[in-house]
């Protein structure tokens, strides 16, 4: 009997906290895998970061082979094809720990993620047997070629064409794929092209095929340790058996791989954020001005505590999302596990969560990296400081795997679709809310740990429904054009998912270890929830002002005021308390 957590249900329903995975639930084995990855990065990759940044990519190839020997490329490859078939948490932990390597983590991620996964999920037995063992060992290196000069966010607008040759043995591909990670040395490319100019399809293209070449190395702002080039296809001859999936069904592959790419990017940003934080707090302890370590200044403490509380929220929501995949995929039958479509269905279920993980993770990293540079002062602007590279490397995360703007649109768009299909009970919840708001009385919030935060989450859900409902009522099918409102709603969903994930994690920790041992987690949750709730209030107000006018507008705004009524803390003392622990530990701790 399957019991599925519905994607997007956090907006309208309560979740069983026992089904939410938190970092405190990791097994010893998962921690050991994380540690091996950390040691691999520290001992193998970091000593040659300078070389990698200078585009000496022979190191990338060598490092991927070493990673292959350790099993770091085989997590998502089935045992049947010489992989390790690890759980999704382990695979995510590898991505998180790898991110400390900077641009090389992009090389690794492109290989194991978007490069290999299309074959893992959608390849037939022959394709899997031919490629997966070698991809898992690092003997072959993979890349993913979707973007074109004229089609980025509009991926289906690709111009690359494929035409079956007269003999029926090969597809002949023509076109250019732009900004292809690993293109400098990849052996295998997953390429999207339109058969006869209209049937969007995927192909496995080997570098050695006639007509396949690459352009010069791109000059980039960051992630310089990764290779980025154009893939050029000039009458490239691809054997017919290398068509991946079905003719004209390439978009199924593309969208599902994007979803996976997004949550993997999310966990990667968690690792990057922790590293940036560590550098910042260590520097703040070392650096003295006015004969005082700058970490003793209250404004430094304010920054450190806010950074850490964001990392806590990001970490919590990212692993919650990974946990949903693990939960869902482990419920598939052995038969379904081998069926790309069944897996794709499981992945698509959490499109909303994947987009939030990507957006929230990348914005947390960008914010933490920015503050880490700021805490370094002028030194943070100097290239010999690691934080300078982190700052530049961070920026791409808000752009690739779907810009954060596109990903924001996906959240309300997918939510409304699910509601219309009856998968999520938006209508019912909205109606209940209507009557509830009419006779709503101020609620007494207790003073036990998390009482306030649970109250804020509960009301944030109502606010989300109020705002989404008002917008849907006002604009109907034309809501798609109201991008500003869509982004308002997406921001509410982002903050709500983050708040709830942090609360659940802390709740579980308190249940297990008691409130005293979970003190730091509780502080992060209090800090984060109060600030996130203020943002939700603002975004909801903007949505309502755009959606409801006149008397009805005033009434809805007053409903919002009722829902946002709360007794906030003095966050200054909370932040100082949280920061003191961080300054002592000299790293992000929970």
């Amino acid at each position, binding site marked *: 009997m399957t019991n599925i957590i519905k994607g997007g249900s956090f907006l309208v329903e309560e979740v069983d906290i026992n089904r939410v995975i938190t970092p405190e639930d990791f097994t*010893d*084995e998962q921690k050991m*895998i994380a540690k*091996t990855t950390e040691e691999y990065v520290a001992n193998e990759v970091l000593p040659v970061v300078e070389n990698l940044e200078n585009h000496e990519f022979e190191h990338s190839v060598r490092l991927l082979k070493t990673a292959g020997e350790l*099993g*770091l490329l085989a997590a998502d490859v089935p045992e049947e094809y010489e992989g390790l078939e*690890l759980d999704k948490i382990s695979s995510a932990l590898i991505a998180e720990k790898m991110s400390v390597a900077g641009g090389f983590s992009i090389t690794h991620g492109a290989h194991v993620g978007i490069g290999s996964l299309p074959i893992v999920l959608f390849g037939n037995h022959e394709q899997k047997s031919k490629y997966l063992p070698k991809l898992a060992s690092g003997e072959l290196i993979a890349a993913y070629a979707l973007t074109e000069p004229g089609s980025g966010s509009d991926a289906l607008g690709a111009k690359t064409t494929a035409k079956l040759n007269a003999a029926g043995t090969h597809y002949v591909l023509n076109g250019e794929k732009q900004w292809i990670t690993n293109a400098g040395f990849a052996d295998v490319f997953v390429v999207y092209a339109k058969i006869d100019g209209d049937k969007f399809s995927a192909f496995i293209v080997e570098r050695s095929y006639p007509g396949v070449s690459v352009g010069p190395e791109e000059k980039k702002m960051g992630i310089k340790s990764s290779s980025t080039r154009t893939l050029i296809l000039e009458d490239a001859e691809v054997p017919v058996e290398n068509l991946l999936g079905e003719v004209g069904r390439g978009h199924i592959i593309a969208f599902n791989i994007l979803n996976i790419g997004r949550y993997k990017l999310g966990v990667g940003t968690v690792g990057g954020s922790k590293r940036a934080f560590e550098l910042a707090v260590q520097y703040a302890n070392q650096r003295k001005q006015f004969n005082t370590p700058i970490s003793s200044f209250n404004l430094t403490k304010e920054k450190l505590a806010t950074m850490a509380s964001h990392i806590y929220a990001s970490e919590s929501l990212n692993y919650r999302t990974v946990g949903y995949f693990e939960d869902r995929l482990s419920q598939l039958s052995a038969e379904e596990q081998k069926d790309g479509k069944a897996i794709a269905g499981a992945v698509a279920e959490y499109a909303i969560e994947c987009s939030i993980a990507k957006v929230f993770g990348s914005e947390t990293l960008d914010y933490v990296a920015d503050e880490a540079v700021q805490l370094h002062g002028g030194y943070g602007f100097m290239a010999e400081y690691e934080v300078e590279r982190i700052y530049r490397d961070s920026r791409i995360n808000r752009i690739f795997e779907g810009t954060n703007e596109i990903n924001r649109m996906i959240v309300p768009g997918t939510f409304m679709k699910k509601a219309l299909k009856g998968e999520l009970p938006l209508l019912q919840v909205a109606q209940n809310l209507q009557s509830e708001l009419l006779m709503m009385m101020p609620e007494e919030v207790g003073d036990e740990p998390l009482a306030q935060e649970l109250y804020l989450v509960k009301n944030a859900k109502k606010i989300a429904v109020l705002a989404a409902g008002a917008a849907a009522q006002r604009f109907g099918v034309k809501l798609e054009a109201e991008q500003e409102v869509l982004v308002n709603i997406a921001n509410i969903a982002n903050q709500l998912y983050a708040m709830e994930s942090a609360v659940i994690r802390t709740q579980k920790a308190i249940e297990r270890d008691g409130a005293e041992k979970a003190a730091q987690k509780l502080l992060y949750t209090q800090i984060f929830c109060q600030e996130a709730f203020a943002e939700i209030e603002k975004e909801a107000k903007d949505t309502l002002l755009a959606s409801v006018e006149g008397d009805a507008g005033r009434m809805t705004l007053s409903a919002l005021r009722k829902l946002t009524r709360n007794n906030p803390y003095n966050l200054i003392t909370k932040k100082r308390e949280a920061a003191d622990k961080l300054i002592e*530990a000299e790293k992000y701790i929970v």
Partner: protein
Amino acid sequence: MNIYVLVKRTFDTEEKIVVSGGKIQEDGAEFIINPYDEYAIEEAIQKRDALGGKVTVVTIGGEDAEKQLRTALAMGADEAVLINTEDDLDELDQYSSAYILAEYLKDKEVDLILAGNVAIDGGSGQVGPRLADLLGINYVTTITSLEIDGTNVKIVRDIEGDSEVLETTLPLLVTAQQGLNEPRYPSLPGIMKAKKKPLEELELDDLDIDEDDVEVKVETVEIYLPPQKAAGRVLDGELQAQVKELVNLLHTEAKVI
């Protein structure tokens, strides 16, 4: 070849030591395999791969030490033994540890025992030699190279920065010094295999050891942190005057001459 490796669970080297109430606080601290023991494990695995046989890692401690044993299994050891003293003993010292290990090993067929040169926590370096003495076998400490040919053994050992070359025979106990090898980290396939490898748990009862036999002989009088390192000082002026001042400071301030 039957190889045993003595392993100790110790504080992570990056951990900050906090002393309170006369004790080192372990709450929330990370623990690792004693780094010198990692050289011993690595050497044992290499010797087994070259000569055949079995590597068994042994530790004394509580339930928590299972994690370090699993790590050793993931590195490539074949079996693990946890001698769990959690319920029976409050304290262990060099004497009691060696005694317990000897009782465990006395009826085993042992060709080679490897241990770390010292544990980074207690730092006595005594358990290995004491155990060899109790078992009546040879031992060599702080080794940096180990060659085995039949039962003949050639060893290079570190003697305070210099090297000494020795020849001896099996059975033998050696303790590993930095430089012996480069310990591997567990590969992911290794980690997956480790959970299926045998990990035996024994208590003092299983070894017919009476608690009185292992009463500690070391009394800890006080535990305190080393004094904070003060900032350095750069002397200036004429060279002669600097030398004079340095001698004076070493005499009056540092009181070392």
